[in-house]
């Protein structure tokens, strides 16, 4: 009787518990989604305000349109018979119409909200000055054209750094105190110097002095027509930027990972596993790597997404035609739609990544599953 009641109760409680967990999970996800969305909207709005200089860019456009309309009216031979006053009246009317067409007749603060909604719905609009190589003025096309070269370069670099630091860190943590370990520790302050700076030196040595590798750019000029040669040429151009980043960041990353693994390998459960006589590889895989991987992967995912925005200075030093260069061009030409478009895409990519990571951890982490979100 007692057993039966127990069973009964237990069976009755399992779906109840699952339901509660699912509910807590959904509530958590929804809450995260909303807060992330609010943050994205705020960040994009801040960019809109800054990129328009709080409305000042509009004044520039207004003056430009006004000038061009006045010029076209006053220089049009068809209106030669009109008096100056009539011409001025006509130009003023045209100008007002144009303002309405551009939406510039409303105050900036109202329009900025309009910009925000269209940016958030990914209608990125048209660039003011920049065009894509194919001649399009659509911001989306301009960005899409530049994205591949940036993704190619920085994904390569980051993947190399990721695996190098993971494998290197694990390897050196095993040989803690050895000569190799000491070398890595000694060399880690070299990372105080950023990648682009090493880039200048590498260009000096390998391009200017030895003449082995190109100074910069994506491919040779003119680009090879044969796809194989083209790929080879791109690869050749990638060597120096990739190497400059490896030089700058590999020591510190290996050092960080090594310390991280060392800290975890002195945990009690690892000592326990060692005492049990488990093989070292198994201990590494099951007891060191598994608990440390989540933060490592989070960091990698965020770094990777961040890198797709391009490294402005590295791209400038190597004359790499990517997103960073585009950012630089857009900012220096005050082409606000392009800047806003880039930030919007970046914000979305980052938000989606953060959200997915949150959800994955919520599924994996029992504390969140149980509705304890304060962690």
């Amino acid at each position: 009787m007692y057993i039966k009641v127990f069973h009964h109760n237990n069976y009755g409680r399992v779906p109840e518990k699952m339901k509660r967990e699912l509910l807590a999970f959904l509530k958590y996800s929804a809450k995260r989604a909303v807060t992330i969305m609010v943050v994205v909207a705020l960040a994009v709005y801040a960019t809109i305000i800054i990129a328009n200089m709080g409305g000042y860019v509009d004044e520039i456009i207004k003056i430009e349109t006004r000038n061009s309309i006045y010029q076209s009216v006053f220089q049009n031979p068809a209106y030669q018979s009109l008096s100056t006053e009539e011409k001025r009246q006509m130009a003023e009317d045209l100008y007002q119409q144009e303002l309405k067409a551009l939406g510039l007749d409303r105050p900036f603060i109202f329009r900025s909200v309009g910009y925000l909604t269209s940016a958030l719905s990914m209608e990125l609009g048209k660039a003011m000055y920049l065009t894509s190589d194919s001649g399009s003025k659509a911001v989306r096309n301009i960005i899409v054209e530049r994205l591949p070269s940036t993704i190619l370069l920085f994904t390569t670099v980051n993947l190399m750094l990721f695996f190098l630091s993971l494998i290197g860190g694990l390897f050196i943590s095993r040989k803690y105190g050895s000569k190799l370990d000491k070398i890595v520790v000694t060399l880690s302050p070299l990372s105080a110097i950023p990648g682009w700076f090493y880039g200048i030196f590498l260009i000096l040595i390998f391009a200017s002095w030895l003449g082995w590798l190109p100074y910069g750019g994506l491919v040779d000029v003119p680009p090879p027509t044969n796809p194989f040669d083209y790929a080879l040429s791109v690869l050749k151009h990638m060597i120096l930027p990739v190497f400059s980043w490896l030089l700058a960041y590999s020591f510190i990353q290996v050092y960080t990972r090594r310390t991280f693994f060392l800290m975890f390998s002195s945990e009690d459960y690892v000592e326990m596993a060692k005492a049990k006589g488990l093989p070292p590889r198994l201990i590494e895989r099951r007891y060191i790597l598994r608990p440390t991987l989540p933060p490592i992967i989070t960091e990698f995912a965020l770094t990777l997404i961040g890198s797709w925005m391009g490294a402005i200075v590295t791209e400038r030093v190597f004359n790499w035609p990517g997103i960073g260069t585009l950012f630089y061009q857009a900012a220096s030409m005050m082409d606000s739609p392009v800047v806003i478009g880039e930030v919007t895409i970046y914000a979305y990519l980052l938000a989606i990544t953060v959200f997915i990571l949150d959800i994955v951890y919520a599924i994996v982490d029992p504390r969140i599953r149980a509705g304890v979100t304060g962690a």
Partner: protein
Amino acid sequence: MSIKRLKETFKQLIAYKSAVVGLCILGFIMGLSIYAVITIPYEEAVKAWRLGEDVSINNPRNAAPSWINFFRQKKLPETMVMDTLKSGSNARKIIIPRETLSALRIEFSFEFNYDDFPSEINLFLTSKYNEAAPYITINWTKPNGATIRLKELVVKGTDRYYISIDNELAKKLRLYLSEKVGQEIPYEIPPHMSLFAVEDESILKPETAQVLKGKYRMVIEGILFGGESDVDARLVVYGKVFGLAGTDHLRRYLVIGLLWGAPIAVAFGVLASVSISFIQMIIAAVSAWYGKWADMLLQKATEFMMILPFLPILMMISIFYKISIWVLLIVVIALSIFGSGVKTYRAMFLQVKELPYIEAAQAYGASNFRIIFRYMIPKVLPTIIPSLVLSVSGFVFLEAALAILGLGDPVAPTWGKIINDAYDKGALYQGYYYWVLEPSLLLVLTSLGFALLGFALDKIFNPKLREM
């Protein structure tokens, strides 16, 4: 931190070789900064940097530092300035006065024993006159005795004769040399080469052309109208090396920029890193202490700043408002106060908050302000000092990065701006390596100094890592 604690830390610090090296480097950079601030007033440095050619007209363009001659078999020429207004400078002026027409003779004579041609020759003239301006002829005599008429001209007030870019003279000299060699010279030989060249077949190629060593003379003969008339002249034979650090494309002496770059870089880096660390710490302490909505607001602000791309925003602000480096510093601080450091510090303060002495402070009725600033922050301070020192290098390079993007300070000379100039003018293509290497070396030294010190401090203040 008490004095005793400081002394103890210092003792621990010098036990690390890397820290000693770091301290030496920083001492050197500090010495450089102090020397710059004391010997060259800021206004003068800015003037020398902005006005460029007007101030440094006697300097050669793109000249390497003098000490490279030390390592070279073929010695590059130094710059020679000869001025009739300065005594003892190989310039002699004689005027034979008459009632109406006076005769003038200026003679510059100098030994030229270098293995390479000068980079440029200019003659600067000034005259005083009442009715008619003085009329002069300029002759050039080579060590082999050949005399060449360079130009005849009327000197009105201040005048400059750029001998190196006188096309007519260049043509005349080319013809003269072609006749001498008996063969047409197949390239456009500039006057500062033809005036110094050995007159044989070697001149047919620019690579093989040789310098005729010996005594050169420039003689200016003129007629002065009226008793009051006078002419003064300055001959500058520009070399290919200059001073300790060389010059750039605007003839600016790089030492000035390199020296003044030191205090600016250190001040920028230290101010940015210290203020950002302290503001972040205060924010973190407040949020940890008050918790609830203050904490939540802070978390959201951190996420918000994470999405806002730092460098592009900084670039836009800098381009739109053309700000100086110090305003830029404030913008950098403003954009960084909600950085990732806040989260780290907050985690530390959450632990500190639970310590018994805080509870004791509360029990005796200490105010929130007192608890945060007198009890919580001092407790965490030592642990953040290493990261504070480490982050200085990052900010020093941030200034350089902005300068590379053309967003440096509009007036003050900085290391980043020198690198940017060098980069823009193709220093790497043309082999002016010194131009890039000198500011780079100083940047590397500064950042390494802070990094070495920071890593050592980290081992002392965060002993958990020391065992690792």
